[in-house]
């Protein structure tokens, strides 16, 4: 959690975005989704997804339940909540503003 580079910091937002777009899925599926967009976010440890997920769960932005997969394995399935969607929207807005501001700043210097 001490790591705070930009992409790592955007992880919770990415998770919410994926869950919002693709519906309920388990941690591993989220991992593969993230990998298809970017190999950078989870570069160091795939497992770092989980504390992030649990933090979202604690904040009630996602909810989780145990489900059985097609291969008859027990998997924990996550789903975005209404609060999660609102939070995502706000975060996306903020993020866009920040990147815009940073971009303008960089151009001016």
């Amino acid at each position, binding site marked *: *959690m001490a790591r705070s580079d930009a992409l790592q910091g955007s992880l919770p937002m990415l998770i919410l975005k994926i869950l919002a777009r693709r519906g309920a899925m*388990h*941690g*591993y599926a989220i*991992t593969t989704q993230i990998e298809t967009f970017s190999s950078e976010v989870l570069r*160091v*440890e*795939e*497992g*770092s997804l*989980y*504390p992030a997920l*649990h*933090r979202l*769960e*604690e904040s009630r932005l996602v909810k989780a339940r145990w489900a059985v997969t097609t*291969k008859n*394995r*027990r*998997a*924990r399935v996550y789903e975005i909540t209404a609060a999660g969607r609102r939070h995502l929207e706000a975060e996306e807005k903020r993020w866009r503003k920040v990147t815009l501001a940073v971009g303008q700043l960089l151009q001016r210097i």
Partner: protein
Amino acid sequence: MSRWSRFVNVLRPGRLQDELDDEQRFHIEARADELEAEGLSRADALARASRQFGNRLILRETSRDVKLLPWLESIWRDLRLGARMLRKDAGVSAAAAISLALAIGACVAAFSLIDALILRELPVRDPARLVYLSRASNNRDLRFSALYSYPLLNWMRQHVSPHMEVFSMSHQSLRQAILPDAGGVEEKLLTQFVSGNAFDVLGVMPAIGRMLQPSDDVTPGAHQVAVVSHAFWARRLGADPNVLGAWIQVEQRPYQIVGVAEPGFSGAQPGVLTDVWLPNMMFNRESLEAPNWNWLQVWGRLASGETLQTVQAIAQTAFANFEDDESVGKDGARAAGSRLELRSAASGYSQVRQEFQRPLLTLAAIVGLVLLIACSNVANLLLARGAARTREMALRASIGAGRGRLLQQVLIESAVLTLTATALALVISRTAVPFIVRMLTTNENPVYLDTRIDWRVLGFVSLVGCFTTVLFGIVPALRASAAGPGEVVALGDRGHTAKAGVARSLVAAQVAFSLMILFVAALLMRSFDRLMAVDLGFRPEHVTLLTVETRDRLEPEKGREMVRQLLDRMESLPAVESASLSGWALFRGYSNGNNVALPDGRRAQTFRLDVSPQFFRTMRIAVLDGREFEATDSNATNPMPVIVNDMFVRTYFHGERAVGQRLTTTRGGQAFAYQIVGVVAGAHDGSVRGEMNPFLFTPISDPAGTIQIRSPVDPKTLADRVRQELPRIHPSLRLVDVTLQTSLVGNTLLRERLLAVLSGFFAALGLVLAAVGLYGVLSYAVIRRTREIGIRLALGAQAGAVVRAVAGRVVLAVMVGGVLGLAGGLYFARFVETLLFEIQAVSLLSIALPLFSLLIVAAVATWAPLRRAIRVDPAEALRNE
């Protein structure tokens, strides 16, 4: 996650762990499946998947921290850590816990007693509207100031009635009784006479049967009905509902039990547990007509809309009219200068409370101070320990523990200490309370206080516990949590100076508090000492008192003959020096007033007691002039031979010779003469503190009274012998009570003894605690400055200079504490001044004595650390660095 499941997680961390594991395992297996599909072996796939996943343990811990309510877990961790820290310094921790436990235990004990005696409201309907009549009197002996006569009760009923419902309850006393199934065996029950409307006005309901009612209180001697208390019913009558209708005998008179009072109500007099209630009409028939026979408390319930003040004005007028009303037939013995007051009776009225309220509050203040001393002590201990842990705290701060987190850790450590101490304190108070109640109890006045542990006591305990924890924990906690990461590297004397300053203030506080206690305790103990040394005018040692009763009314001639026989028998018993009989024993608490006319016609007030020949010899009261009574003296002759005491002569004869003089009185409406045949020295009666009163002694004609036997033989043996002798004199004579004259005197000093013993104990405790605190602070200072001392000594410093350097500021703190303590003690002393006997609160001795004891203790406490300081070996001290 719901709050509940968080709790479950904290309490069952294993389950959460399993779930986190399962989730991780699923991820790794799913990844391995994919890698396997790409052509890796299962084992390689698993290994690689695992590698990609990262450090499972750390990730799991992170998730766990996220999931558990963090503070809840940290509290549990701190609790365990605290317990471990306390165990590490087991000796010191035990000392801290015990001193805290003693102090808290004492506070809890004081609270239970005060709650039971003073605070708790009566378990009756709307207790706030109850009042009792009290007499504010010039008479210093307050014992009987709230007792009134039956005619007064009636008068009040008639004159205050619409404003207040008036009822009465008598002074409770132990009376001989025989229970329904006892087969004639007598025992003593606490009985109380009440007016017929008492229970109705109080609002006390029966558990079974009925309570007494107005129709039970109409004709003198005609209502043989009784109500028993629930506690008595359960304890002595086996809670048997069939007891209704059974007969109970009280003082040879049968009463039918008509009801059992509701549980919880055991009388309106906290401190005394009534067994049986009887109607007023069954009390001594003569008392119902006698306006000077004060035997009942007058109570009332204010009518709605009335205030205490308005009703008091009405009652005062009625009382004044009663006192002036000649038709009431008083023979002039009204209490001079007395004024009626109404007092709230919401928590009942009790002589026990009258007597012990101020002593108990004084003790409460003292134990409160002891608690403060104990708190400062423990605070010092934690400070010293905190100093030793600066490195640990700094380390924790540097790895990111917030100040709040460190504060929490130290406070929880304190709470663990308090919890241990509080548990111990409850045990201590459970032992102490009955012990104190026993100290208040005498044979004649058994004191009962409902002091079981209830929510009030538990509430108080938790309050004291929290207060204590914050009090002794907050300073060390703030200091410890202030540790910045920087202190890991720089760990010199920096930062210690502030801590030493706090420690010194705590020493000053301890000294001040313990000096306050010492000051007051010294006053109380010296006062008690004075009381014990008072010359009573007689010698109570080796006098056994045996109270004898008769069933029959005896003819005076027959009675006198029996007294003669009785005394002959007693004197012939082996090892009996002398024996006598009197109406009642000195210091029994009874008194009888008599109004006589002096030879010049002036009226004289005097106390009166019937005594037999040998009374003054047995009691060792000196005969100053004339003679003692002789067997031939009788109260039937006119003039009757009487003896007066020195006080009487001094008050009324002004140095004139009294022997041979005649006094006159009225008896049965007829003039009657007393011939003074002797003058005896004055003696105290009823109170060691009070003045000696004028006394008139008349010849006794009734064997029912108290036998005094002066003999070295133990009371039990004497009682057995007397019990054998009695039937030989007359079959109806029986022994009802055996006691020692010394216990009767001692009983009047219970309050003073209680205060002296307990305040002495707490003063000693406070002193020891303060000494331990002083010792601790100095020892710590010496250890901390060993290197500095070593250097000073190496440079040739004298021992005196070293002592000054080490102890200088601590001595200053002690002095500041001493001054504050003296000021506090002087202030506190004003509160106990009324309890003191012939002791000046502000005097050289009362200041010097506690100061001197404190100095000695301080010297002892500082001796060892200072000796260690001047014996520091410079080489050794420097090598350690």
